[in-house]
């Protein structure tokens, strides 16, 4: 894997940081490659745009920060507004379908969306939406082995929630497999522009 820059962003409380930890762990511990995760710290304890930066590579990561992400995972409209413009021209954008409306992006951007919150709610716990996103990411990007990420999920969550999180991962992954087969989405930018304001 060449150096891959990833930003994961959402609002505080969605488990943004944990999803980046899971992906970083999968890469560096279970695949024996290299991962560096940094998070943006602000004075707010909760809420607001929250983001993690993840660098994955076959060789040691030097510069720890994202300059132009190859992949961006976005779970809130506020985070989308704040970060989307830094995405590489032909980058991959992965969004929470119900929480993010894509408004203006270069045509080459590959967009994949998943109703992670709804899936998480179907599983009984909204809080596992981040792991649904992780599963979806794994399938769509093909960067990491599903098995490695699954293991990372298992050892990153409390034992009592392990089964639930693994289910969340599997559901997200299955959704991603279909999404990848269907190919990138083409968002209706005009309609999105109209409704995006309500999401911020």
């Amino acid at each position, binding site marked *: 894997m060449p150096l891959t820059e990833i930003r994961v962003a959402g609002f505080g409380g969605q488990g943004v940081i944990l999803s980046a930890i899971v992906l*970083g762990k999968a890469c560096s511990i279970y695949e024996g490659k290299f991962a560096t995760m940094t998070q943006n710290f*602000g004075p707010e304890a909760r809420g607001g745009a929250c983001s993690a930066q993840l660098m994955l590579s076959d060789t040691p990561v030097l*510069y720890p920060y994202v300059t132009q992400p190859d992949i961006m995972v976005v779970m809130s409209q506020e985070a989308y507004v704040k970060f989307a413009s830094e995405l590489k021209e032909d980058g991959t954008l992965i969004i929470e379908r119900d929480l993010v409306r894509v408004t203006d992006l270069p045509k080459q951007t590959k967009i994949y969306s998943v109703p992670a919150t709804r899936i998480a709610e179907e599983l009984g716990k909204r809080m596992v939406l981040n792991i649904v996103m992780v599963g979806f990411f794994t399938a769509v990007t093909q960067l990491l082995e599903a098995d490695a990420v699954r293991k990372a999920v298992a050892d990153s969550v409390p034992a009592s929630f392990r089964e639930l999180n693994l289910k969340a991962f599997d559901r997200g992954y299955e959704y991603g497999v279909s999404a990848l087969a269907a190919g990138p989405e083409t968002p209706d930018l005009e309609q999105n522009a109209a409704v995006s304001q309500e999401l911020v």
Partner: protein
Amino acid sequence: MKADPRGVLTGTHFMDGDHACCEGALAAGARFAAGYPITPSTEVVERFAQRVPTVGGCFIQMEDELAASITLQGGVWGGAKAFTVTSGPGFSLMMEHIGYAAMTETPCVFVDVQRGGPSTGLPTLPAQGDMMQARWGSHGDYEIIALCPNSPQECFDLTIKAFNLAEEFRVPVMFMMDEVVGHMTEKVVIPPADEIEVTPRKHTHKSVEDYLPYGTNGDMVPEMAHAGEGYKFHVTGLTHDERGYPNMTPKMQQKLVTRLQNKILSATDRISMFEEEGTADADVVVVSYGITSRVAQRAIEMARADGLKVGKLRLITAWPFPENKIRQLAAHIKAFVVPELNLGQMVREVERAAAGKAQTFLVPHAGGSVHHPEEILAFIQEAVR
């Protein structure tokens, strides 16, 4: 001796630098810490507070950094290996007690996760602005040791080293992290306890009658006793004789302070750790430390791709400063390029040691983020000319 397995979290972890530092301290045998919350360092003691009661030890949150930095020294004289953790404003408050530790030869570790300053500055953002303070912050003449990790793995490995050096030389060791390294999460491999070497306290074996608390046996580092063992020794921050008794004469001052300096300076080459690469035929050597060394590495690779002859010298030990190494390099290169997250601190040492034999270029950065590799590259290109 080998590490006490109770404190060693053997395994492969995905861990940030602050937590890795805490694990390093536990592996090194630290069983006592006194702290005061301050961003971006607090995670170290938060983890310690959680872990140490299950390992056999104690954490106390003190009322301020003045207290924390001396409470830990009480802990050391009570028999524990101890440390405190802070960031810029707290580090400023600890200065008097760094001097006290140097004067009383109290082995201990001060962790400073550097953030932007001066004053409250940038609580959540990085800088490397405390490097000179670490060396010169307390009044009077003294020497300390300072280490600069550049990854969570090194936060673990070098924290152990910091405790070992503190014990070997009976000196306060400054562990100079920065916000990026502290909050960065990477793979950290913690080996089994029997693969971790820890330096035991230089405890005296002498009888009460024969023991001189500040007597030395050639190596300039006195043997230590702990309170409660019957030695009835005296410890003071005043200038003191071998018995530990105050002796405030110019002669004793000369003798004591010279020894405190020389026990470190005479061992500089042994203490110094650095990473050197590609310097043999280099025109320019980039000297860096901490997080900046990783950015510098990228700049060096970019420069080499352009055909420039660039070497790397990463300081792992910042203090005592590896003067001899700089002097040797200065004799055969054109220039040093020194990027640091401050407006010129360690560069002064490089310039001093280079003594005009090679030019010195500072790549300044006031802090708040790290350099862009291109900024460093631009200086390398200029320096080659």
